[in-house]
């Protein structure tokens, strides 16, 4: 199994991109704000190096074992990144709004069910159980990221939130890449087997190229500081706290009347 020239090129560019992005995350202190995303990028750097070394000095079986192990970690971290970004976007103060908690939970469950249904549908193009599971896992995380991205777009428009925050930038890159991931999964299922048909191969190459573009996008957008948060003055905070308390009290009274 010898990698093609284009695969080697993508490997080199990917490693370089991941290293630069990791450096940006560490130097500009973004890793503190997005620890799971930083861990995902760090894992990608380590994976690229380890897989290269294993490929050179070990056989096919150890290579596949290492590959699948890293893929499992990668999948877990992708789900973690979805949660990390969602919690930054949808609960900026660190707590869910009390009255929307039930609605948000229902929406989350619906999103997860849709993602699980789509991920369980494709016919396994691979014979290996682990590879099949990983393909489904990647599909699951792609659907979840797409849903998250859409939710973020809707919320930004509704609540007039800025599009230029770091969380939004990460979600934008992941969203575009995941959308393409869905299309790739569709093409792979139609053509039958990964990398056997020219169309399938071209789609994979296009997907890899898109990921490199996303890496550059993250490097460029995560380097500068994000827009300053709109902080409340202590007076406004106290006033809002009072309004919230009185609203809560009135709401309880109204609910009692309704009963």
């Amino acid at each position, binding site marked *: 199994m010898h990698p093609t020239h284009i695969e080697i090129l993508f490997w080199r560019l990917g490693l370089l991109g991941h290293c630069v992005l990791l450096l940006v995350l560490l130097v500009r202190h973004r890793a503190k704000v997005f620890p799971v995303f930083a861990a995902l990028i760090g894992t990608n750097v380590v994976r690229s190096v380890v897989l290269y070394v294993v490929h050179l000095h070990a056989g096919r079986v150890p290579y596949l074992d290492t590959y699948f192990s890293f893929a499992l970690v990668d999948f877990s971290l992708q789900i973690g990144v979805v949660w990390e970004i969602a919690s930054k976007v949808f609960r900026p103060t660190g707590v869910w709004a009390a009255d929307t908690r039930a609605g948000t939970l229902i929406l989350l469950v619906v999103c997860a069910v*849709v993602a699980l*249904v*789509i991920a369980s*549908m*494709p*016919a396994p193009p691979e014979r290996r159980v682990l590879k099949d599971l990983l393909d489904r896992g990647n599909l699951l995380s792609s*659907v979840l990221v*797409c*849903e998250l991205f*859409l939710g973020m*777009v*809707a919320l*930004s*428009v509704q609540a*007039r939130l800025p599009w230029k925050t770091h969380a939004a930038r990460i979600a934008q890159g992941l969203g575009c890449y995941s*959308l393409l991931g*869905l*299309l790739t*999964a*569709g093409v792979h*299922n*139609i053509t*039958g087997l990964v990398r056997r048909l020219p169309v399938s191969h071209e789609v994979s190459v296009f997907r890899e190229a898109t990921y490199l573009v996303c890496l550059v996008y993250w490097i460029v957008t995560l380097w500068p500081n994000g827009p300053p948060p709109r902080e409340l003055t202590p007076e406004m905070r106290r006033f809002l706290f009072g309004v919230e308390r009185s609203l809560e009290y009135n709401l309880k009274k109204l609910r009692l009347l309704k009963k």
Partner: protein
Amino acid sequence: MITIRVLYFVLALALFTVVLLAVGLYYFVRAQRRKKYPYGKWEDILKRLTIVDRDSIEMIARDFTVESGRAGAQAVGPDLDPSEIWDLVGGMRGLEELEKNCEALVDLVFYVQQWYPEALLLAEQLRQSTREIQWRVARLKGAEKAGHLKDWFPEAAQRVVVQYLSMTHKVLALYERGGYPGLSELQRTL
């Protein structure tokens, strides 16, 4: 070979992607529109106004004013009975239309802010009046469910009409004072 399972998967994926893109496009267009018209589009706000029979609501408002001032001034004027008020307002549907118009009136004043920022004060006053009207209409709906609408309707409807009429006067006065575009259309509609 494409099996039925693959077909279902591709169809589900296509449906998901189309829904995703459609919802995304909807919000994108909305954001662009908001960027282009931060104060809303005049024609769209005006379209939201339902034409109301001004003579009828003025008659109801006059009756309410006469009723309120009768004790002191002993004024003589129209004295409407509950069924006449119901007909003149157009029942609950008529009140709901007034309620919707109130929201449009607030937006009409908000629109003026682009030339006259002080209009914010009037917008806030109208918003409070709208809240009061909404509260009265909601109570009437509650009374309708409980079967007491006839008892509550006349007075509540009169109050809503008086408040609505006062809101329209304020909006027209603001547009007249400032000489803002669209005054004649507004006068025709209100």
